[in-house]
C-alpha cells in the first residue's frame, strides 16, 4: 500500500511540475508537501499542497538547490519520500544519496544510474559499449580550449559543443570553425560553472559531430523492480529555439515503423545497461533522410514533456514513478493510440524569444475534450526573472495528427495571457507553417521561420 510505504511526499520543485506532481500525490491518498522560495509564495503549487515550507530567498542556490534546506524541510514535516521533479536537484546524485541516507524514499533511479548518465561523456562511452549507436565525438572531458581545437580537427566541423554535466540546452552551441569554437567553448565552460550544482572539478566540455538536418526524438522508458525495462513510445522534440524544446508530439511524424522499433529496443538496452528504475528518457538524434539514429543523452528523471506520452498511453507517469519507488511492480502495457502535441507557453517575446517576465493581469486557459493544460500560474501571480520561463504546457490530443493540429489551433487561440510577454503568437504561427503541418520538419525549423520574418 502506497499510503503505508510513502505516506507523505515532499516535492522539491516549483511551478507547473510541482503542481502536477501534487495532483497525483493527493489523488493517491498521500500527503503532498511543497517547498518554496520567497519569490514563489503566491503560486498555486504552494496553496494546493497539504503543507508548504518556505526554504529561502529567490536565488535558487539558496532555496531550491540547497540540499540541506530541502532535507531539513522534509524532516520537519515528516516526509517519507522526495520527488525532485525535473531540473534543480533532479539529476544530482549526491542529493539522491542524501535522501536515501536520511531514511527517505528517493523517487528516481539509483544514484549510481544518475552518476553514470549525468556525465554525458561517460554515458556516450557506456552506450557505445552496449551496442547503441553514438555520434562521432570526444571520449575524454575537454578541459581547455587547445584540447577543444584539437578534438574539432579530428571530428570535423561543424561540431556541437556542450557541457558534460549540464542539461536543458544551456551552454550548448554549434561551431563552424576555430573562431566559433572559441566562443562556443567559453560559453559552455561558463555555463558549466554556473548552472550545474556540482561543478567542482572545473568545467568539462564535450564535442560531437553536428548533424545539420536532424530530428530530436526521445524514448520514454520505465524500469521496473527486478530489472525489466519497458519502452512507452517516443516523443518528437524537434521544434526548438536555442536548443531548447518548444513543442513536442507523439508519435513522431518523421520516423518509420521500422526505425521506431529499433529506437525503442535500443532505449530498453540503455535502461538495462544501467539497471534503471523508474521513469527516464533516452534522447536520440535522427537523420530523417537516412532513417538512422544516434544516442544523445539520457535524462534520469521525469521529463517536462511527459504529458504527451500520458495522453497517447493513458498512463500517469508520476503514479508509476511513485509505485516503482515504493517497490511495487505495476502492470504496464503501452499501446499508444491517437496523437498528442504539447506547446510550451513561455514568458518570452514571440519573435526573438527573449525573456519577458512580469505580473499576470489576465490568465484564461482553454479547456474541453482533448485539451490538457499543466500551468504554474494564475492571474495576479508574477513571473519573476529568477527561474526558467515556462508558464504552462498546453497539450492537445486527437484521434490523429490532423485532429490534434486543429485542436491545437483552437486551444492556442482560446488561451489568454496578459502581462508577461508570451510565445502563444509563435505557437499560432507554427500551426500554420507548412513544414510543421506536414510533419516534415527538423531542429532547424524555428531558425528558418525567424530568418524569413526578420
Amino acid at each position, binding site marked *: 500500500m502506497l499510503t503505508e510505504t510513502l505516506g507523505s511526499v515532499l516535492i522539491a520543485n516549483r511551478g507547473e511540475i510541482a503542481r502536477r506532481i501534487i495532483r497525483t500525490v493527493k489523488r493517491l491518498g498521500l500527503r503532498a508537501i511543497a517547498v518554496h522560495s520567497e519569490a514563489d509564495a503566491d503560486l498555486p503549487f504552494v496553496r494546493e499542497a497539504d503543507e508548504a515550507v518556505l526554504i529561502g530567498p529567490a536565488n535558487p542556490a539558496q532555496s531550491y538547490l540547497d540540499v540541506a534546506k530541502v532535507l531539513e524541510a522534509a524532516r520537519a514535516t515528516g516526509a517519507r519520500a522526495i520527488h525532485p521533479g525535473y531540473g534543480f536537484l533532479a539529476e544530482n546524485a549526491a542529493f539522491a544519496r542524501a535522501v536515501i541516507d536520511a531514511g527517505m524514499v528517493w523517487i528516481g533511479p539509483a544514484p549510481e544510474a544518475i552518476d553514470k548518465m549525468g556525465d554525458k561523456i561517460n554515458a556516450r562511452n557506456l552506450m557505445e559499449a552496449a551496442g547503441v549507436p553514438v555520434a562521432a565525438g570526444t571520449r575524454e572531458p575537454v578541459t581547455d580550449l587547445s584540447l577543444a581545437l584539437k578534438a574539432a580537427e579530428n571530428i570535423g566541423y561543424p561540431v556541437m559543443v556542450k557541457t558534460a554535466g549540464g542539461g536543458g540546452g*544551456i551552454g550548448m552551441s554549434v561551431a563552424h570553425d576555430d573562431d566559433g569554437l572559441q566562443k562556443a567553448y567559453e560559453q559552455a565552460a561558463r555555463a558549466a560553472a554556473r548552472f550545474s550544482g556540482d561543478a567542482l572539478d572545473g568545467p568539462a566540455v564535450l564535442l560531437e559531430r553536428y548533424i545539420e538536418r536532424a530530428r530530436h526524438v526521445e524514448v520514454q522508458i520505465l524500469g521496473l523492480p527486478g530489472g525489466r525495462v519497458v519502452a512507452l513510445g517516443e516523443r518528437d522534440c524537434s521544434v526548438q529555439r536555442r536548443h531548447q524544446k518548444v513543442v513536442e508530439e507523439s508519435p513522431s511524424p518523421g520516423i518509420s515503423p521500422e526505425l521506431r522499433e529499433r529506437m525503442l529496443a535500443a532505449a530498453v538496452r540503455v535502461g538495462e545497461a544501467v539497471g534503471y528504475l523508474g521513469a527516464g528518457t533516452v534522447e536520440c538524434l535522427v537523420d530523417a533522410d537516412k532513417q538512422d539514429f544516434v544516442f544523445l543523452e539520457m535524462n534520469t528523471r521525469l521529463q517536462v514533456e511527459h504529458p504527451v506520452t500520458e495522453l497517447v498511453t493513458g498512463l500517469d507517469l508520476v503514479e508509476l514513478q511513485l509505485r516503482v519507488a515504493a517497490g511495487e511492480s505495476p502492470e504496464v502495457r503501452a499501446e499508444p493510440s491517437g496523437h498528442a502535441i504539447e506547446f510550451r507557453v513561455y514568458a518570452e517575446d514571440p519573435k526573438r524569444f527573449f*525573456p519577458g*517576465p512580469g505580473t499576470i493581469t489576465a490568465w484564461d486557459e482553454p479547456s474541453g475534450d482533448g485539451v490538457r493544460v499543466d500551468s504554474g500560474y494564475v492571474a495576479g501571480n508574477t513571473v519573476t*526573472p529568477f527561474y526558467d520561463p515556462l508558464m504552462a504546457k498546453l497539450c492537445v490530443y486527437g484521434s490523429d495528427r490532423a485532429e490534434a493540429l486543429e485542436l491545437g489551433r483552437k486551444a492556442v487561440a482560446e488561451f489568454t495571457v496578459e502581462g508577461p510577454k508570451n510565445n502563444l503568437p509563435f505557437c499560432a504561427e507554427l500551426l500554420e507553417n507548412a513544414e510543421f503541418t506536414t510533419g516534415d520538419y527538423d531542429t532547424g525549423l524555428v531558425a528558418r521561420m525567424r530568418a524569413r520574418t526578420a
Partner: protein
Amino acid sequence: MAEVRAEMVANVWKVVVKEGDTVSDGDTLVILESMKMEIPVLAEDDGVVAQLKVAEGDVIQEGDLIAVIE
C-alpha cells in the same frame, strides 16, 4: 550621447566595462541574466562610458538606465 536601457527585468550578472573606458559599436557593456538566459548588452556607438548605473547582483527593471556612452 547614447543612453543604454534595459529591455527586460533581469539580474546584472557581469559588468564588463567601467566608467571612463573607451568602447566601440558592438562591445559588450554588461551581461544580464533573466530566466536562465544570458543577455549581453552591447554598445550601439563608439565612445566613452560616461556613466555606469548598475553593479553586479542588481535587479533591474525594463527601461532602467544601464549606461551612458558619450
